[in-house]
């Protein structure tokens, strides 16, 4: 499994480097490109976990659709802007960012440590998923989990998305109305 480990560390390095790139590039387009690389490396992590379906969906939705829209907006709004330049207008962001970053890192570490310690996490954890995949096949396992085990969260998420779409429509309409 040496190959596996090499792949993991390479991917991890790429993921972290590109994540740093997202926040350190001055040009919005380069930041976005880093984010795309980051999302792609996450997709490869999913592939390494045998979650080929989720990996593909990760590429399809995030890299293929969401980021394309980002790119669309960024290239359209600021085609020639290389950098923001000058003084950072939002200085308080530094403090807030560091604080929130620490909280997020702590939470993640807690979750990972807890997850690997807790015995009953297998029902939904990586091992459980691998077992399900072996039993039913990749797509089928995912479908079963989604529509049998987690149908309520799934539906809640879609309601949330519908609300988001409606909100976007309302906001968009109001802005258009003001312009006219």
């Amino acid at each position, binding site marked *: 499994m040496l190959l596996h480990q090499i792949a993991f560390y390479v991917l991890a390095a790429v993921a972290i480097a590109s994540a740093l790139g997202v926040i350190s590039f001055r040009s919005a*387009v380069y930041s976005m*490109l880093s984010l*795309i690389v980051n999302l792609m490396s996450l997709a490869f992590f999913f592939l390494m976990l045998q979650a*080929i*379906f989720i990996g*593909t*969906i990760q*590429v*399809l939705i995030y*890299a*293929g*659709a969401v980021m*394309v*829209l980002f*790119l*669309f907006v960024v*290239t*359209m709004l600021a*085609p020639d802007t290389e950098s923001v330049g000058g003084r950072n207008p939002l200085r308080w962001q530094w403090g807030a960012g560091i604080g929130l970053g620490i909280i997020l890192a702590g939470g993640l570490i807690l979750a990972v440590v807890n997850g690997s310690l807790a015995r009953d996490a297998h029902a939904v954890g990586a091992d459980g998923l691998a077992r399900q995949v072996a039993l039913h*096949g*990749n*797509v089928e396992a995912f479908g079963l989990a989604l529509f049998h085990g987690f149908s309520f969260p799934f539906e809640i998420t879609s309601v949330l998305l519908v609300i988001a779409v409606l909100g976007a429509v309302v906001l968009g309409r109001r802005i258009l109305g003001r312009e006219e």
Partner: protein
Amino acid sequence: MSDVAWIVVAAVVKSAIAIGALLTIFAYMTLVERRVIARFQRRVGPNRAGPLGLLQPLADGMKMAFKEQIIPTKARRLIFVLSPAISVFVALIAFAVVPLGNTTTWGTSPVAIAWAPFIADLNVGVLYMLAISSLAVYGIVLGGWSSGNHYSLLGALRSAAQMVSYEVSIGLALAGVLMLSGTLSMVGIVHAQVAQGIWFILAQPLAFVLYAIAATAEVNRAPFDLPEAEQELVAGYLTEFSGLRWSLYQMAEYINMITVSSIAATLFFGGWTLGGLEGIPGMPFVWYTIKVAIFLFIFIWVRATLPRIRYDQLMKVGWQALLPLSIINLVFTGLAVALGWPWWASGLFGLGVLLIVAVVLYNRLRLRQAMERQSGEAVPLALPSSVRLVRIAPATASESGDGVVAAPAAPAESVTTS
């Protein structure tokens, strides 16, 4: 060597063959397209280089290779150089899951299976294809953006909007087929068609039509070739590219055409099968090739015939026509599959929807007033009523000084016969 090593060798060899074949087909596809379009337009087409012009792609390739590859001063160099490569890379890897034949050609050992005529049979094959083709837009958008040219940028933006909108319709149109077959694997879908004894075009005619339209838009071919509309945007995102980088983009476009044709052939027309005739050794590949070639010919045919659609109209068609229709199709197919109705239920439904759409469009055309033409023969040509023939009495010499300028509301006699 171990089995794993053999499987890796098989994958590498098959990939090499596929890439070589795709590049050759791309080269000859350009020749075929030029010859066929020339036929449509009563020209001869390129026939000088070698017999029947068969060496033309070689000559083109040489020319492109030796051309200066200009990088504009305003370009972002790194991305400008990388983006054609992204396009081609994405186009090539998308082809990995296209099956050119059945799994078990000889033997059942893992090594024998590894030599089956496709690079990989992913159990998410169709999704993989969609995911990869959704990445194709990056090559175009980044290429256009990095050129530092307004025309390129406009082309790139058009492309981004177009591809994102049409991917949704493609995905939903294909979902009907996936429901019927119950698998996402490309090989599995062909097997499902054999098992059910039909091609899915029969069960999903509406999905096929929607897919055909959306896929044409997805690969930026006429009449949806807005990103490179040469009459409006010079050459769109391609404007600043020259030499090999330009041909890389062309390569990506043609390979994408082959790929979407392959999806159509596999999902709707039984892939490598042809009513049992696929049993003859070597023939599956022939059937597959014929099917794809027909689709490629239709691409060329459409390009020779139709004017280009406008950008906003394209978005309107995508979101207001294709998307609702594909959702209708999806819902009905889901119903049919869930209730266990036979395949012809969704087939009839799809045909019905197509018929309704056709009748609506036809009626809108016929509403325009028919007009008889000068020769007196009734020409079955529906001419709109906005333009009429005005008969002005020949002015005599004395009157001509006044200038017989008929105002818009002047009595105008519509002429029917001479």
